[in-house]
């Protein structure tokens, strides 16, 4: 199943990946694939806009970690922005907030 994903290209290397709805076991593979696709096209500096994510589980987290690896291997980054309290809680539970900086907004992430 494809998640709701939207891509806004900011520059040659930069893009914003917006994710809407559920990021879970079912939507994670497609999300992972989309990030790989963007990285393959040279967009290695990505910000994931998670403001409209309604649900996130460990499969979703795993997709984000894969994305982190893919972007940083090419000298880029994957930053996360716009997390609501529910989603932030999932990060804290797995301590993934020790790896990812959680930005309040896309602008702050690119900042």
């Amino acid at each position, binding site marked *: 199943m494809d998640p709701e994903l939207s891509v806004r290209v900011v520059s040659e290397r930069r893009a914003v990946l917006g994710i809407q709805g559920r990021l879970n076991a079912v939507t994670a593979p497609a999300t992972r694939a989309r990030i790989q696709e963007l990285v393959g096209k040279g967009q290695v500096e990505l910000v994931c806009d998670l403001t409209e994510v309604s649900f996130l589980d460990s499969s979703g987290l*795993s997709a984000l970690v894969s994305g982190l690896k893919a972007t940083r291997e090419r*000298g880029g980054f994957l930053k996360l922005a716009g997390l609501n309290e529910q989603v932030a809680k999932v990060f804290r539970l797995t301590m993934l907030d*020790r*790896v990812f900086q959680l930005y309040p907004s896309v602008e702050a992430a690119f900042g």
Partner: protein
Amino acid sequence: MANDNHGRHVGVFRALGALTIILGVAYLTWRYSSSLNQGALWFAIPLVAAETYAFVNTVLFVIMMWKPTRRVSPPPLVEGTVDVFITTYNEPVDLVRLTVEAALKIDWPRLKVYVLDDGARRQMRALAAELGSGYITRGEEWTGKPRHAKAGNVNNALMATDGEFILILDADQIPDPRIIQRTIGYFRDPALAFVQTPQHFYNVPPGDPFGADAPLFYGPIMQGKDGWDAAFFCGSNAVLRREALLQLGVTEYVREMEQHFERALKRLRHDVSALARRSPDLPAARILRSALKKADQALRVGAPLERVSDIVRQGISAAQDVATRQDVLSMARVLENLWAEDAKVGEALRQLLGNPGHGPARQDLSSLGLEEAAVDELNLTRPTEAQPVLPLATISVTEDMATAMRLHALGWKSVFHPEVLAQGLAPEDLRSALNQRLRWAQGTLQVLLRENPLFKHGLSLPQRIQYFTTMLSYFDGFASLVFVLSPIVSLATGLSPVRTPWLEFLAWLGPYLGLNRLMYLYVTRGINVRRSEQYSLALFPLWIKAVLSTLTNRDPEFVVTPKRRQSGHFLHLVRPQLAIIALTALAICYGVYALAFESQGTQMGVAMNVFWGGYNVAMLLPIVRAAVFRPPEGWKPRPPAFFLAGS
């Protein structure tokens, strides 16, 4: 009614167990205080040490069986998607065919079956296509990375599938069509991570020469552990919750990143400092040093690793901007001397300085001959692994127990469901059987060494004891060695390990040993544990080998147990046991002769040791028979009934 019986049985067992322990304490007190033969301490001490060890085992056994569960399938869930993973590497296609066919017939509406082929074989792909199952192999991201055998195989498949629950089956384990219906109901508990069901074999020859069946383990023992919420994952025939596995993978990723990050940063800081000191006029070195210091400060105040990594990167970038070719060459000379021994750190700097995406300086800097590892670690890419998130533990060749332990440590729960819902193939010759047991022993001991359950954060005290109990059992070999040698020594030399008369020894030992035996027989009534008991003792050379090889850190390779019978006889595999049998026989003859004609020893002593020696021989003979075993004429294993009925 059944519950009352169960309650009564548990009560009787507890009484027997408690009494055994009390008698044991009394016995050992007497042993230590009044019985040691001061004149032959080299004999007396090992024996009392072995008896103490055996007593500790008894205590752990009683604890383990203190409150067993007797679970009954709850009604199945109304929804939930299930993935069936059939792991294979080099098993014959016709064998895997049976498993896949049976898996496709499992009674569950939202089911997907996948063949996880680590051998990437054409015929396996064709089989999957023919039968209509999924087929997964490793992708290119695994090239040049550690493959982690079966754990890696499952981890790989987890990234390519999306079922909420996963049934893991070894290539030979044919599932009962009811397997999901009978187990999925337990997952109503949101904290449940997995349900383990027994392993059972349909190719066990009459008499079970190789001790394949483990009805005690997949019965009272696992039920006992289940009572303490410590039933562990056994590698196959289990249903696992994806969310639990993935959550584990993510938390482990964080832990690994933190550890490696700290280490890599520390190493680099140390060496860049030294470099800056020796070449103070190199601006690149100074810039690097201050960037690393800033990164370290950020790390200490708890900044996310992403942020710290960015600081390091910016430092490198700045350093590269000012580094001239001359600088690079000077640095190279200094570094070569500094890091002659620490190539790893060297490579770290090289990568640090050779950050991709930045200019021509990279070329020159990489000529420093430095290593990549640490820098990638500072880059959060987990460069040493194919995929950053590894749900199944990869620290040992038996990944199952370690994974279960980590899940328990995170607060997840487990269930042991005691109904046989899949049947597979046991090793059909002695060499394969021994290899399999050696692998389990080494794997379990590796977990003990690398993640000692006694100290693992997050486990409850009963869980720590349960995991430790299983691991400790592999040290039995040393005690067994003492026990089989003792009668030989006594009969050969006339020496006694005790300074009291043998009769007094028997008077103290008898009740304790008798009650211990009675307790054991009670808890195993109705289960044929004879072979298990014999093998527990008879495999003492294997257990000793497992402990020694694990302690000396010779990494055992993952050896897949062959599923077809290897031919030939295997007497050379049981040389130690043969030696003990021969020595015991000789010692008995000599001991009797020496008693009659040379006044060596006493009648009681010789009688007890002859009996003891005879008992040891009886326990060792089955494994010798297994070494020359040939299946009876015309006997063939029959696949399980449920499988035949369904076809």
